[in-house]
C-alpha cells in the first residue's frame, strides 16, 4: 500500500534551507549558524520520525514533487518514496547526522570556516536524503553525486594544506571511476527496458518488469557494483577512504563512516531483486566484500594514526556488509549498516574528542593513560569498542553474527571462515586502539598533558547518546522490519559462542600486548620483519596504483602537453591559418585603403557595364 503525501519533501527541503542560510547569512551570524546548522537536521529527524509513524504497515509513503525530465518517451519524476528501507536509512542519516552536527558545534568552535563547514554539512545531509528517498535511479544518482561532491569539499575543508586538497582530489577521482560504472549500468537498464517500450528508471517499475532484464542482469549488477566499490570503498577502489581522514573528524564520522560510504550497500539492498536474478554477480559481491574485510582489518592492526585505524576499520566493516548482501542476507547487511553507523560514529567522535583534548595529536604513540583524564570519552569509547568487537549484548554482536552465520550457511562457507577471522582481527585492532589511547603511561609531551582536558558538554552529549545506541542498537529488529527476508537464518547458540570467544580473544590479546607486556609488540614486529613492514605500509597498494595508473597517466599527459598539443593540434590550427593568409596575401594588395583607387575601379566597372550594354 502506498499513501500519497505532499509533506515528505520537507525532509529534504529543511537541510537545503539550512544550506541557503549558512551560505548567504552564516558568515555574518556565526551564533545563528550554531542553532540553524544542527536545527534543520534535527527538524528533518523529527519529520522522519513523524513519517515513520504515519507509514502504513508493510507499505510506503510517496511524494511526487514534480515531473523532472521528459525527453522523447523517457520520463523521470522527482519523486520521494518512504518505504521500510528508506525509513531505516532516513532515520540513521538524520538521527546520527543531527548528533554529529551538534558535536561539530563544539569541535569546529572558532574555526574561520565555521559557516562554510555547516553549509557543506547541511548540503551533504540534503544530498544523502535525496539518495535514500529517491523513488527512481536518476534522482538517486543526483544524491549519489551530491554526497560525492560534499565529501570532496569536506575532505579538503582545510585546503590551505596541500595534502588535504590532494586527498580531496583523490577521493573525487577514484569515485569518478566507480561512478562511470554506475552510469553505464543505468544506461544498460534504460536501453534494455526501452527496447520493450518502458522508458523509465523508476525502481518500482523496474521491479515489476525485472523479467525483461533477465539476460543483462549480471552485467547491470556488476556495473552497478563497480559504482558501489567506489562509493563504499571496496577493493580495488578503497584507496581514497584512508586519505579522506584529512577532513575534520566529525566529517569522518558522518560521511566517511556512518552514512555516505554506506550508499553502495543501500543501493544494492534497494536493487536486491535485480541481484537475485544474477547469482554470479552476487557471488562477486560476496567475495569482494570478504576479501576487503580481511585486507582492511589486517592493515588496521599495524596503523599508528588513530583515525587511520578507524578508516581501515570502516573499509573492513563495509566489506562485512557486502558479504552479507552477497550471501543474500540483505536484512542483516542493512542491520549491520545501522549498528555500524552508531558505533563507528561513536568511535570517530570519541577519537575526535581525544584529538581535541590533546591539541590535534593523532599518533597513538603519543597517547596513553587518558582513561582517568577524560572520563566520559573513556566510557563511551569503551561501549563503542565492545560494540565493534562483537561482544554481546552490544549492537555489533547481533548484526555481525547474522551476516557471518548466513555466510557460513551459504554457498561459500569459506567466506564465513574469512569473516570469523576478520572478527578476531577487528576485536584485536579496536582493543589495541583502546588500550594504547586510554591505558598505560601517558606518552604525550609535558606541555600537551598540561592542557589535557575533557571535551565540553556539546561534544560529550552526542557521545553519550551514541554510546546508548551502540549498546542497545542490537535489539532493533531491522531485518524483521525490512520483511520478506524470511529465509535469513538466525545463528545457533554454538556459533554465537564461537564469535564471542573470538571477540574476547582479540580484545584479550590486545590487552596482553599493549597493557600487560608493552614491550612485546615491538618484539613481534621485529620478528615478523618484512611482513610487518608490508602490512604497516598498507600492502603498498598506493605505490602500486601510483606505478600502474597514476604515472602512466601523467606520462601520457606529458606526451600530450609537449608533443601532441603543440605539434599536432597547434600545427593543424596554425597550418590552416598559414594557408589562408598565403592565398589571401595576393588579394589583399588590392585593398590599398586609398579612396581614389576604389573610385577608379568603380569607373572601370561602370565603363565595362556601359560597354556591355552598348555593344550587345
Amino acid at each position: 500500500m502506498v499513501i500519497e503525501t505532499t509533506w515528505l519533501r520537507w525532509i529534504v527541503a529543511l537541510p537545503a534551507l539550512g544550506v541557503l542560510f549558512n551560505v548567504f547569512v552564516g558568515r555574518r551570524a556565526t551564533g545563528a549558524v550554531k542553532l540553524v546548522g544542527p536545527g534543520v537536521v534535527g527538524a528533518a529527524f523529527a519529520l522522519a520520525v513523524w513519517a515513520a509513524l504515519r507509514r502504513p504497515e508493510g507499505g510506503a509513503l510517496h511524494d511526487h514533487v514534480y515531473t523532472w525530465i521528459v525527453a522523447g518517451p523517457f520520463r523521470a519524476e522527482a519523486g520521494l518514496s518512504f518505504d521500510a528501507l528508506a525509513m531505516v536509512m532516513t532515520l540513521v542519516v538524520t538521527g546520527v547526522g543531527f548528533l554529529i552536527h551538534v558535536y561539530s558545534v563544539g569541535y569546529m568552535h572558532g574555526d574561520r570556516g565555521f559557516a562554510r563547514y555547516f553549509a557543506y554539512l547541511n548540503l551533504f545531509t540534503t544530498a544523502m536524503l535525496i539518495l535514500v528517498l529517491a523513488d527512481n535511479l536518476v534522482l538517486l544518482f543526483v544524491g549519489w553525486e551530491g554526497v560525492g561532491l560534499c565529501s570532496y569539499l569536506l575532505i579538503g575543508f582545510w585546503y590551505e594544506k596541500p595534502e588535504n586538497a590532494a586527498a580531496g582530489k583523490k577521493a573525487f577521482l577514484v569515485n569518478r571511476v566507480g561512478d562511470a560504472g554506475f552510469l553505464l549500468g543505468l544506461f544498460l537498464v534504460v536501453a534494455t527496458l526501452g527496447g520493450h517500450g518502458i522508458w523509465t528508471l523508476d525502481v518500482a517499475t523496474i521491479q515489476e518488469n525485472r523479467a525483461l532484464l533477465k539476460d543483462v542482469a549480471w552485467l547491470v549488477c556488476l556495473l552497478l557494483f563497480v559504482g558501489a566499490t567506489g562509493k563504499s570503498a571496496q577493493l580495488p577502489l578503497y584507496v581514497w577512504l584512508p586519505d579522506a581522514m584529512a577532513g575534520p573528524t566529525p566529517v569522518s564520522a558522518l560521511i566517511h563512516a556512518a552514512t555516505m560510504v554506506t550508499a553502495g550497500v543501500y543501493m544494492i539492498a534497494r536493487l536486491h531483486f535485480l541481484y537475485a536474478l544474477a547469482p554470479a554477480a552476487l557471488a562477486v559481491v560476496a567475495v569482494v566484500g570478504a576479501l576487503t574485510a580481511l585486507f582492511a582489518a589486517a592493515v588496521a592492526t599495524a596503523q599508528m594514526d588513530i583515525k587511520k585505524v578507524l578508516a581501515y576499520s570502516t573499509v573492513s566493516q563495509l566489506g562485512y556488509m557486502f558479504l552479507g548482501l552477497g550471501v543474500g542476507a540483505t536484512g542483516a547487511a542493512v542491520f549491520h549498516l545501522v549498528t555500524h553507523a552508531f558505533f563507528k560514529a561513536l568511535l570517530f567522535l570519541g577519537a575526535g574528542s581525544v584529538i581535541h583534548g590533546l591539541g590535534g595529536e593523532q599518533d597513538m604513540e603519543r597517547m596513553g593513560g587518558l582513561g582517568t583524564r577524560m572520563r566520559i570519552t573513556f566510557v563511551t569509547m569503551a561501549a563503542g569498542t565492545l560494540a565493534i568487537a562483537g561482544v554481546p549484548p552490544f549492537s555489533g554482536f547481533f548484526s555481525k553474527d547474522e551476516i557471518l552465520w548466513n555466510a557460513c550457511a551459504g554457498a561459500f562457507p569459506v567466506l564465513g571462515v574469512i569473516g570469523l577471522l576478520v572478527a578476531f582481527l577487528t576485536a584485536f585492532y579496536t582493543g589495541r586502539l583502546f588500550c594504547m589511547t586510554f591505558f598505560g603511561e601517558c606518552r604525550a609531551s609535558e606541555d600537551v598533558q598540561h592542557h589535557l582536558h575533557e571535551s565540553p558538554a556539546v561534544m560529550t552529549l552526542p557521545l553519550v547518546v551514541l554510546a546508548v545506541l551502540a549498546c542497545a542498537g542490537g535489539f532493533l529488529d531491522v531485518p524483521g522490519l525490512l520483511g520478506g527476508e524470511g529465509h535469513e537464518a538466525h545463528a545457533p547458540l554454538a556459533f554465537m559462542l564461537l564469535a564471542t570467544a573470538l571477540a574476547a580473544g582479540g580484545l584479550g590479546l590486545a590487552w596482553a600486548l599493549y597493557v600487560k607486556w608493552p614491550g612485546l609488540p615491538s618484539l613481534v614486529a621485529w620478528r615478523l620483519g618484512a611482513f610487518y613492514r608490508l602490512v604497516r605500509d598498507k600492502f603498498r597498494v598506493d605505490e602500486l596504483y601510483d606505478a600502474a595508473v597514476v604515472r602512466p597517466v601523467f606520462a601520457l599527459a606529458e606526451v600530450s602537453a609537449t608533443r601532441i598539443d603543440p605539434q599536432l593540434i597547434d600545427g593543424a590550427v596554425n597550418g590552416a591559418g598559414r594557408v589562408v593568409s598565403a592565398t589571401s596575401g595576393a588579394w589583399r594588395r588590392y585593398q590599398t585603403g586609398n579612396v581614389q583607387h576604389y573610385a577608379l575601379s568603380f569607373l572601370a566597372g561602370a565603363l565595362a557595364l556601359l560597354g556591355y550594354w552598348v555593344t550587345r
Partner: protein
Amino acid sequence: MTPPLAWYLGLSAVLFAIGVLGVLIRRNVIVIFMAIELMLNAVNLSFVALARSSGSMDGQVIVFFVMTVAAAEAAVGLAIILSMFRNRETTNADELATLRW
C-alpha cells in the same frame, strides 16, 4: 530659338568627365568632394534637358530628389572631413589610407 538637345547633353558629359577626373586625380579631399558635386549637377542637367525635350515632368522631379540627397551628402561629408582634419591635421587623400588590413 532654343539650342538642340545634343548641346545640353554634350555639356553634361563634359561636366561629368571633369568631375570624374577631379575625383581620380586631385589629392585634396575637399576638391574631390567638389568634383562629386560637379558630377551630380552634370547628371541634373541632362535630366532637365531630357525632361524638357520629351515634355514629361518626371526628370524635373528626380532632380529635386538628387538636390536633396546632395545637400544631405554635403552636410555629412563636410562633417567627416572636418573631424578627419581635426584628428589627422591633413586633407590629403593619400595620407588617409589607414582603413584597410
